[in-house]
């Protein structure tokens, strides 16, 4: 990405006001929504692995929890974007930030593959123990989200101004 664009981005009035005034609040909202995203995903994933909520159908658990996940994810992306804007060149050069973005992408691909392929046979295993492919998908998702959180926290320790 061009440095000119990143410099323009962090020079916009919105980016400057985040950097100078609103960063702690934006970051707090990011942490709250991240907790909602990861926490609800862990509950759905552990059901997918056949470990929790086993008396409830998988599709029911995911239908009831994932709307919370998606709304929180939207707010997380919004607050994350504001934080990125406040120091665009710093984040862009930051290795943990880049790793976090790759892990987010992989978590998305894992979810997409699950929805398009594994979930099609849900009727056969909805009430019981999901097949190994579904359980693996849940495990991969948990691992990737732990990575997203780990590298996300790491960003703050190495970010340069």
């Amino acid at each position: 990405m061009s440095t000119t664009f990143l410099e323009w981005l962090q020079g916009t009035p919105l980016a400057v006001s985040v950097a100078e005034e609103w960063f702690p609040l934006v970051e707090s909202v990011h942490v709250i929504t991240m907790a909602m995203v990861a926490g609800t995903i862990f509950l759905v994933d552990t059901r997918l692995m056949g470990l929790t909520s086993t008396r409830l159908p998988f599709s029911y658990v995911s239908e009831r929890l994932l709307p919370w996940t998606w709304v929180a994810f939207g707010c997380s992306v919004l607050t994350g974007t504001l934080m990125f804007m406040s120091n665009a060149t710093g984040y862009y050069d930051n290795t943990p930030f880049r790793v976090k973005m790759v892990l987010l992408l992989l978590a998305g691909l894992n979810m997409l593959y699950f929805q398009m392929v594994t979930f099609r046979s849900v009727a056969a295993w909805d009430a019981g123990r999901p097949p190994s492919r579904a359980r693996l998908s849940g495990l991969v998702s948990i691992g990737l989200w732990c990575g997203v959180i780990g590298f996300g926290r790491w960003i703050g320790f190495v970010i340069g101004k």
Partner: protein
Amino acid sequence: MNLIAFSHWLESTPLSQSIQTTSWAIPGIQVMHILCLATLFALALNLSLRVAGRGLALESSRSLAQRFVPAMAICLLLLLLSGSLLIIAEPSRTITNQMFYIKMSLLLVAVVLTLWLANVARREPDKPSRLHVAVAVLCMLVWTGIIVAGRYIAYYIT
């Protein structure tokens, strides 16, 4: 011994020293703290929703409380453990920080409200009362406040 002297003493203990000198220790403990808080937050949300007659309503509120309350207790224990390690590692960051005391006061309130909700869930009321819904909402607001106060500790270092 006043708080500042206590904080200096704590900072000089071997445990504090070894956390401080291990580069990955503080970020690692913080990540564990965040993972537990995310899980606890989602469990609290579902308990609150269930008491308010929403969420995983296909399961009896009694059964949901039986599953979720012990899991929440484990998360809280891990949070207290990781939080204590973070205080031991950097006592001057928290012990004299008023945001930390606000967070701990809110934690007491959240625990009381959550236990009250768990108690309601175990009694399995036919319909949620207005009080149940109000406490459920309040409970989630207090847990949210704890997260905000926790994050603001970093900005109120004195």
